[in-house]
């Protein structure tokens, strides 16, 4: 593959360039405005170093919020990305659907494969699509159950010769290493590979459509779908599922408008061209020790960058439906997953300067790094604001010698309130706009109608604001752990119902309560005027264990409705039926 010529006016690359410029310019402008307003406000009583520090912190954190808002606005004003080529007819190439597993429930995972195979069969493409389970399971008991249930899968689906199972003795390189091992031993058997997670589900028609698109565009190296979250039951899980269902498509469309040839890869629910993958995605070990060195944890964005570097197109097609995944059911599972992502994204500091990467790939990697620095920037801003009070000293109303009249500093309170409202607006405005847009376009019908959609938007906003300080604490701890050299390892995902006991919640969240108490005490001691202002952050931290427990409880029916609640997608129904039948057939073999 070779590099492309500069984009022509009106081309997709030209439009992407325009969208990038618009989003970057508007977010930088918003950040500069916030920074300058804060600078003027801070300098009212004379300029000090702490004012400069606070200005830089508010500028960076506002840029991050404005960048999210700009992406959402782009999504609201862009059209869905439609495939450049509309291919129909039978597919020609051979495809493998890869399902990597790591100490997962074999019944759940393999019944998903059965459901997807049934769905593929309905398209008539069975002969062209194989499945392979790549096990990195360390627990021998679970591994034995995997083989047992794989036999059941082969028998049910008549899958001999097109369904495969392989378990590695050493899980070198984790998921990326697992896939690499398949490509180096068997990759030449297939033209394309659909990469899934153990909890992924895809309609057969979607898989076939992805194959058609990648077959029709020889430059396309990777095609990413936007997976919808299904199966959530808890308050936390259903709020996340609702946000992913309502808001994510808009953010994804904004992202798609800017992607050009270097779109995102999220590690699953995507199709890759095997030859392109083999040529470009052999990941080396990074120099040094974990957490920054060693195997690359968040391999997906690096693989996307490497494909784009080699000249392949990496693209998110947000019009592809029928792609599903499951999400964490409680804050602890979310934080565990986030700890892994945090280490993986911060590790990208060693990759972002890699030679030959496209500028947008570098920016995407930078975004990942910055997303984990943002909580620390907010915390630093809060700390600096508390510190600024005792450092401010007394105001001098008589700065001029021999001048009998007092000089009052200018009152910039209105500017400060305006700034606070502006930042609050950047936080909530995108979600409200997406909700209103869904009502205006009729999309809200899928979420229970206009009233229920807006009610859910409001509840989701309230809930996310309430738990934001708790998530901020978890994320800050993760970042600090990584910065201090602590490796998070590779804990398996929990995919159960996610309900937590009070004791579990207390054990997981009590340190956040301590942080909350410390925060309030220090503020009360050194900057009592700020104590009340700090309460929206400090109070949720104080009651963190309670919040963790409460949000893991089952959600009230009717709240956070998503389209899948009103009409289960076919693949989800099919999976549920197979899971029921298997659980009834040999219940004692089920491994939780």
């Amino acid at each position, binding site marked *: 593959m070779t590099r492309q010529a500069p984009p022509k006016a009106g081309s997709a690359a030209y439009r992407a360039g325009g969208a990038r410029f618009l989003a970057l310019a508007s977010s930088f402008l918003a950040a500069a405005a916030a920074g300058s307003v804060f600078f003027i406000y801070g300098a009212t009583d004379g300029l000090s170093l702490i004012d400069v520090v606070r200005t830089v912190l508010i500028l960076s954190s506002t840029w991050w919020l404005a960048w999210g808002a700009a992406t959402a606005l782009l999504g609201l004003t862009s059209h869905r990305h439609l495939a450049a080529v509309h291919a129909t007819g039978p597919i020609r190439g051979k495809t493998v659907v890869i399902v990597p597993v790591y100490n997962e429930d074999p019944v759940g995972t393999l019944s998903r494969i059965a459901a997807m195979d049934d769905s593929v069969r309905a398209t008539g493409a069975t002969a062209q699509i194989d499945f392979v389970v790549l096990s990195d399971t360390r627990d021998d008991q679970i591994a034995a159950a995997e083989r047992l249930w794989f036999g059941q899968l082969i028998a049910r689906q008549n899958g001999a010769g097109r*369904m495969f199972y392989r378990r590695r003795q050493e899980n070198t390189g984790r998921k990326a290493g697992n896939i690499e091992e398949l490509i180096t*031993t068997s990759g*030449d058997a297939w033209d394309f590979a659909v990469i899934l997670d153990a909890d992924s589900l895809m309609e057969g028609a979607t898989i076939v459509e992805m194959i058609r698109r990648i077959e029709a565009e020889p430059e396309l190296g990777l095609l990413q779908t936007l997976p919808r979250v299904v199966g959530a039951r808890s308050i936390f899980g259903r709020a996340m599922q609702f946000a992913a269902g309502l808001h994510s498509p808009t953010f994804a469309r904004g992202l798609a408008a800017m992607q050009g040839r270097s779109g995102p890869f999220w590690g699953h629910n995507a199709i890759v061209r095997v030859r392109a993958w083999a040529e470009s995605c052999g990941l080396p070990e990074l120099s040094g020790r974990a957490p920054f060195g060693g195997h690359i944890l968040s391999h997906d964005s690096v693989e996307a960058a490497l494909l784009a570097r080699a000249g392949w197109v990496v693209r998110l097609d947000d019009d592809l439906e029928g792609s599903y995944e499951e999400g964490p059911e409680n804050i602890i599972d979310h934080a565990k997953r986030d700890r892994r992502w945090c280490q993986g994204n911060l590790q990208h500091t060693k990759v972002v300067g*890699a030679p030959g990467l496209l500028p947008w790939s570098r920016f995407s990697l930078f975004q990942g790094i910055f997303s984990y620095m943002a909580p620390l920037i907010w915390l630093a801003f809060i700390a600096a604001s508390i510190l600024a009070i005792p450092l401010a000293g007394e105001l001098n109303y008589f700065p001029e010698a021999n001048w009998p009249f007092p000089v009052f500093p200018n009152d910039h309170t209105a500017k400060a309130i305006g700034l606070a409202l502006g930042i609050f607006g950047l936080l909530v405005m995108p979600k409200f706009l997406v909700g209103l847009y869904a009502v205006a376009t009729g999309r809200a019908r899928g979420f229970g109608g206009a009233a229920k959609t807006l009610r859910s938007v409001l509840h989701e906003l309230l809930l996310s604001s309430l738990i934001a300080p708790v998530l901020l604490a978890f994320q800050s701890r993760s970042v600090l752990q990584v910065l201090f050299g602590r490796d998070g390892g590779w804990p398996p995902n929990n995919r159960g119902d996610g309900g937590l006991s009070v004791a579990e919640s207390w054990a997981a969240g009590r340190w956040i309560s301590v942080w909350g108490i410390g925060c309030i005490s220090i503020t009360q001691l050194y900057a009592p005027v700020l104590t009340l202002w700090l309460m929206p952050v400090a109070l949720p931290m104080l009651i963190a264990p309670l919040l963790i427990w409460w949000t893991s409880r089952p959600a009230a029916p009717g709240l956070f409705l998503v389209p899948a609640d009103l009409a289960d997608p076919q693949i989800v129904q099919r999976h549920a039926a197979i899971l029921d039948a298997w659980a009834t057939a040999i219940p004692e073999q089920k491994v939780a």
Partner: protein
Amino acid sequence: MTDQMPIMNNGAPRVAFMRDAFEPPIAPLAMPKQVLTNEHRTMRRSVGAVVSLLSLIKHSLRRVV
């Protein structure tokens, strides 16, 4: 379940298996390791280019003055 025997093929490490019925077919594909670290030579070259440009400007200015 599998006994792994490292073999070499075109410089890329491969793994051959004692196969069983469930194993995927053998059809190896080379997957070369990518370069992710910045080459110091490239950076030195860029810095060198900037330095030579600056000295060129300095000499031109001297001539003008």
